[in-house]
């Protein structure tokens, strides 16, 4: 057990491209030629990559910031891997950056900061939707979530 822990500590590192935790550099996702390199999904932590991968719906690349902006804790852009993200966008291959930080005030601040930074570069910046959890009861949802769900409503289209 102790040997395994030491080995894990020695082998696990941050991917030099996306910042995800990995035992090989670059990580499996960054090394996969089949993944869409025109889209980057920006996340706060490595654990968020696992959650996104479980959906099996996203086939682009990732970028892990290593946290989110937090004005009251003094965590600014310099403490996050934002410079590395800008470096990745430099070659012009990326057309869309999906900001999938947590739906908290810090996550929102990070998303808004990235939009301010990337929009002038001509890159499409999108934010993941917010609202009701799948399979949940409407009457159990809190007011803030319901308001978000109402804001994000979509037109229902039928075939006929």
């Amino acid at each position: 057990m102790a040997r395994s822990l030491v080995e894990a500590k020695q082998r696990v590192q941050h991917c030099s491209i996306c910042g995800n935790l990995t035992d090989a550099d670059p990580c499996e996702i960054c090394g996969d030629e089949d993944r869409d390199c025109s889209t980057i999904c920006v996340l706060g932590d490595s654990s968020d990559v696992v959650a996104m991968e479980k959906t099996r719906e996203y086939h682009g690349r990732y970028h892990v910031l290593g946290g989110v902006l937090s004005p009251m804790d003094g965590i600014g852009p310099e403490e996050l891997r934002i410079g590395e993200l800008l470096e990745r966008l430099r070659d012009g291959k990326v057309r869309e950056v999906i900001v999938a930080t947590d739906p908290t005030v810090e996550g929102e601040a990070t998303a808004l900061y990235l939009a301010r930074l990337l929009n002038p570069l001509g890159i499409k910046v999108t934010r993941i939707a917010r609202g009701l959890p799948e399979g949940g009861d409407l009457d159990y949802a809190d007011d803030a979530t319901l308001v978000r769900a109402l804001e994000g409503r979509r037109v229902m289209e039928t075939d006929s």
Partner: protein
Amino acid sequence: MGALKLMKIEALILKRSPLGEHDRLVTVLSRDQGKKRVVARGAGKMVSKLSGLIQPYDRVQLDLWRGRTLDGIRGGEVLESFRGLRDDFKRIIYAACMAEVGEQLAQEENPDEPLYLLLLTCFRGLLRLKKMDLVLLFFIIRAMKVAGFLPAFETCSRCGAHFRGDVQFDLASGQVICLECSEGRGRMGLESASRVLLQSLRGVHPRELNTISCDPQRCRQLRETMLDFAEYHLSRPVKSRRFLDILD
């Protein structure tokens, strides 16, 4: 087993931070009991009803259970949502700066209704007004006054003379000193127009903030001076201050 002791408080959510994997430690400024730190169990889970209740800057009514060390949130309702402060980068920064100064000035379990009402007024002002620098200046001047540091801008605190030109602001006393009386450290130069602006901000009604004109450069300089003043008396840096520089 004794009955669960419950109580209701009206409060502004100042900050929330992780506590374990799913719990959140929430710092609030309550109307009747001053600053409080309370636990929101399971609020980190997506399906938690409490997560929407503890959004920063919202005015809420919280139902609390009494804990041995920390009280916990059992439920409650949002009385006034400040969602607009969380949807705009500039407003997030200004609100964070006010919440941080307010949190540092408030004392735990020590009722401070004037500070509560001031912060509430300024959050409303941030939503309503475009001159956010003025709202922040107004907040710091009034908050320092509530905390017992009353900045005076009319006459020299040393010789009592009415000011005519540029002056010096003394961080330690929060008083303005004429250039003749000025000596020593901890003083910052104030142009005459800046002193007049601070003086009017000290007496203005929050509703009239929009009628005050100030060029952005002067506003920034005064903001820095007032934040220096706050930091001097808080004996700690205002961490969100560096984000204001990003906005500039």
